[in-house]
């Protein structure tokens, strides 16, 4: 590792987790089988437990909360991309009737950040503003209008500094330091890892393809803007309702920044209107609303405008990637070498993880004998990038799957055949030491090949039309908490009462993906209840045991396992109560569809589940249980070897069919076939929803979306967002979407709850390279840079040889590509 890695050193007073790991209960029957022979709830097309509240407009989101005496607050934001703050004069604003308080960075001096080693943010900038839109003061007043009027009266004296707006500039000008946290120049993080003999592998290859790729950044754009309400009551207790997806981490950082003990803070996550990673760390609004509530003694609400959501960002990092990939004449991978530069924006955010993920998550589903990556994240004067759905690995996956397409052509192999020749299989280990258990990737390839009628179409469609393939894998949670500790990663408390009802308490964060329904589904399956008999209390730090939140696709696997254990503990108690009564073994007691019965004489020995709960309560006392999940020790034995290690990996393959207009450069996606190995689909409708939503989001990044910034011009300095609105930042409408064909593959993971793995992020990855490869099939041009917009497609079409390449690729098939 290079010396640049030093700033990952553990701060004083913190220790990395020891080898010791909590061991969740072991169940002899394993985790994949139905509790009673067949499933009664799992795998059915159920409704979500909160579905009707959402479709009738009754669901309460953060901005729907209104407390008595509540004030509104707004943030004053920097107009410069990089500027020292000389002074802030808020006296005129404070003199305005109806204005209750103004705070600045001096009121919130403590830094924070989602990763304990890189806490480089302040809720309000004190010394320097680092991007256009960086928050520097907050105003609380009777109304939002008054806040705006007050903000116009705040005088900020800036000393404008040279702004860094790109990767090359950041590297070339270490003296213009964006972020003082950087140990060296503008380097946010550097990772260099090598496995096997890369140079030897490349030298021994029959074909080496070398390529440069550019992935433009994009942002999450949940339809709900960030919002929070904070209430500091007269007893000194702070309650914060926030549209967060990580209530637990927000809880910790609020305590740190506000100087309050965590036991004096309660964080509640109301219904959240979309997140996609964009709400997975604390933001200025939560600290400012809380501080303003402490200062004024009144509840305070902050609702970001849509423009502010673009500044809050934490979206997909722009990445510049260089790949060298070798294969044998038979199409077997020999070595992969990647050099990656990452544009991080002004702060660290999850950047340490992003930098690792940009390399660590590429090593499946294809076996690589040798692999090396060198990734550098830089600071620039732009809104901070972070984790967007498929964190850190969507960009390299794009580049690598395009590389595979080029290699397949070079060795005259069908691209699906090339992928099949490099399968790593189940129960294997990646070159960088990751343990792979269940692996349904071969079935994913089969499914999309068959459903898309690939063999009839590949290199056989008329000019302008084409198909492309790509594959990927993704994690089902990571094996360490973001801050080192030995406590469980997920926990559930379950309460049964004599009315025949269950209540699940869990810190899990439902952001629309359905984690509340996941909890209910598992409890119903184990205890024989209907979905209407279960109440879920989630993401409330006063009421629920800690779950780390919705990120890294961890909820189904980790929370699901915790819930399964809690429910099974109670099922055992109930069976132990009924078995002697009915003269059967406990495993012959079944609970399903609100009925408890013995399998020996189900007609005679039966009662309602409610009665079964009551008899059990009479036997053992009040019914409650806990369950938790902690992943086993995983990963490679080297520094960073645990980053990217997951207890289970999901796999995906896409075939995309396009129709391109060579006159206009317009690319229209007709159909996407998505095959995703989610282990077991606990709720098929929810899994399909994730597959369709992921493919939609990937295609949107590929074709339309760009989080880009303007260069300096006569009326403004550099670093202005190109268009922070939903009109200028184009996300697809209902008229812009193709047909999605969802093909669920169930590989039954031995450690997943009923065999389940993730489905929320994995299915995004292949959509972008599959589309790029389809465009090549259609037009003979290689789209190695995003987005594949009409100007870019036209530019590539005008380069010499495009049509000839298209002809040549076709003749290769006529001569017989190997399948």
């Amino acid at each position, binding site marked *: 590792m290079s010396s640049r890695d030093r700033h990952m050193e553990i701060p004083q007073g913190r220790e990395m987790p020891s080898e010791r790991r909590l061991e969740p209960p072991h169940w002899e029957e394993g985790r994949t089988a139905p509790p009673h022979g067949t499933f009664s709830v799992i795998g059915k*097309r159920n*409704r*979500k437990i*909160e*579905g*009707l*509240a*959402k*479709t*009738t*407009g*009754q669901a*309460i*989101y953060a*901005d*729907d909360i*209104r407390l008595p005496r509540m004030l509104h607050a707004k943030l004053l934001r920097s107009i410069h991309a990089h500027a020292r703050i000389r002074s802030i004069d808020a006296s005129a604003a404070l003199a305005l009737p*109806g204005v209750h308080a103004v705070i600045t960075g001096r009121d919130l001096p403590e830094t924070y950040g989602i990763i304990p080693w890189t806490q480089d943010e302040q809720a309000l900038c004190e010394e320097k503003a680092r991007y256009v839109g960086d928050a520097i003061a907050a105003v609380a007043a009777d*109304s939002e*209008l*008054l806040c705006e*009027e007050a903000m116009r009266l705040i005088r900020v004296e800036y000393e404008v500094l040279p702004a860094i707006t790109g990767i090359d500039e950041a590297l070339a000008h270490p003296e213009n330091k964006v972020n003082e946290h950087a140990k060296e120049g503008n380097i946010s993080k550097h990772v260099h890892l090598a496995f096997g003999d890369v140079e030897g592998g490349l030298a021994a290859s029959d074909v080496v393809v070398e390529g440069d790729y550019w992935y433009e950044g994009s942002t*999450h*754009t*949940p*339809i*709900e*803007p960030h919002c929070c309400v904070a209430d500091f009551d007269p007893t000194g207790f702070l309650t914060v309702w926030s549209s967060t997806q990580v209530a637990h981490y927000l809880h910790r950082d609020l305590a740190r920044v506000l100087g309050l003990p965590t036991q004096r803070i309660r964080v509640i996550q109301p*219904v*959240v*209107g*979309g*997140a*996609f990673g964009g709400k997975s760390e604390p933001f200025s609004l939560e600290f400012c609303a809380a501080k303003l509530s402490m200062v004024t003694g009144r509840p305070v609400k902050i*609702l970001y*405008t*849509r423009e502010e959501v673009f500044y809050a960002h934490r979206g997909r990092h722009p990445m510049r990637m260089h790949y060298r990939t070798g294969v044998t004449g038979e199409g077997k991978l020999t070595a992969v070498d990647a050099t990656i530069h990452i544009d991080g924006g002004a702060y660290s955010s999850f950047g340490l993880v992003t930098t690792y993920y940009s390399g660590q998550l590429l090593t499946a589903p294809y076996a690589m004998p040798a692999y090396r990556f060198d990734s550098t994240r830089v600071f620039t004067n732009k809104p901070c990038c972070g984790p967007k759905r498929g964190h850190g690995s969507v960009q390299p996956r794009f580049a690598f799957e395009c590389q595979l397409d080029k290699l397949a052509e070079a060795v005259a192999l069908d691209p699906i055949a090339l992928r099949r020749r490099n399968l790593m299989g189940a129960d294997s280990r990646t070159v960088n030491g990751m343990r792979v258990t269940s692996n349904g990737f071969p079935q994913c390839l089969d499914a999309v090949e068959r459903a898309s009628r690939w063999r009839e179409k590949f290199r056989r469609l008329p000019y302008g039309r084409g198909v492309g393939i790509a594959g990927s894998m993704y994690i089902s949670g990571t094996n360490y908490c973001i801050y080192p500790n030995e406590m469980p990663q997920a926990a559930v408390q379950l309460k049964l009462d004599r009315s025949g009802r269950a209540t699940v308490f869990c810190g899990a964060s439902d*952001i*629309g*993906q*359905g984690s509340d329904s996941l909890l209910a589904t598992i409890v119903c399956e184990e205890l024989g209840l209907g979905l209407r008999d279960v109440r879920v209390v989630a993401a409330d730090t006063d009421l629920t045991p800690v779950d780390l939140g919705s990120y890294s696709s961890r909820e189904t696997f980790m929370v699901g396992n915790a819930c399964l254990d809690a429910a099974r503990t109670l099922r055992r108690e109930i069976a132990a109560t009924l078995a002697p009564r009915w003269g059967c073994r406990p495993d012959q007691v079944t609970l399903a569809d609100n009925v408890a019965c013995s399998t020996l004489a189900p007609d005679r020995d039966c009662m309602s589940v409610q009665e079964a709960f009551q008899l059990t309560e009479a036997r053992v006392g009040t019914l409650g249980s806990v369950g938790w999940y902690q992943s086993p020790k995983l990963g490679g034995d080297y520094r960073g070897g645990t980053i990217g290690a997951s207890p289970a990996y999901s796999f995906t393959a896409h075939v995309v069919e396009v129709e391109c207009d060579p006159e206009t450069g317009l690319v229209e996606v007709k159909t996407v076939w998505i095959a995703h190995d989610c282990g077991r689909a606990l*709720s098929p*409708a*929810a899994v*399909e*929803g994730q597959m*369709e*939503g992921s*493919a*939609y*989001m990937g295609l949107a990044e590929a074709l339309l979306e760009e989080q880009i910034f303007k260069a300096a011009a006569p009326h403004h300095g550099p670093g202005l967002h190109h268009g922070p*609105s*939903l*009109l200028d930042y184009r*996300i697809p*409408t*209902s*008229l812009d*979407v193709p047909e*999605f064909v969802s093909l669920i593959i169930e590989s039954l993971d031995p450690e997943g709850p009923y065999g389940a793995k993730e489905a929320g992020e994995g299915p995004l990855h292949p959509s972008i390279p599959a589309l790029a490869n389809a465009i090549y099939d259609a037009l003979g041009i290689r789209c190695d840079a995003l987005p594949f917009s009409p100007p870019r497609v036209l530019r590539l079409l005008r380069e010499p040889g495009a049509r000839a390449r298209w002809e040549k690729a076709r003749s290769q098939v006529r001569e017989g590509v190997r399948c």
Partner: protein
Amino acid sequence: MNVDSATVVCRLNVNGDRRECAVTPSTTLLEALRYGLGLTGSKQGCDKGDCGACTVVADGEPVLACISLALAYHDGPAITTIEGVADRGRPHPLQDALDETQGAQCGFCTPGILMSAWALLQRAPEPSREEIARALSGNLCRCTGYTKIFEAVERAAVRLRERGSGSVTR
């Protein structure tokens, strides 16, 4: 600017009720509904008329409440919001179908989507997939890729026709 000086009473005909709230000339219909009348089902996603989360129906036509002035609806046409679609607490077939297909993931765009679809089914009881896509093109959804929403609207249209009347008014 004294924000309160221009405050007047706005009388709105919402979901069959005549409701009054205090507004200024610049108060939007969305603000009047959400903050004046407590009808928080309609959502603010952009406050610029770009996302459609605030869509309500006035006189049978979808309206972007965030760029409409409340006073323009003073003693004006009948406004229906998401809260006015269910029949005495019984979900409308559209609300039911969107729930069944899981066409509402985070649910934030759902009220707007539902109102656009509701207006569509009033004028076109048997819409094609293309008509549905066109009718919803002013409502951005970031979760679903729209597929399950299309399915829900088609399913609701069938149920409404089966119910006989073909009418989707309350």
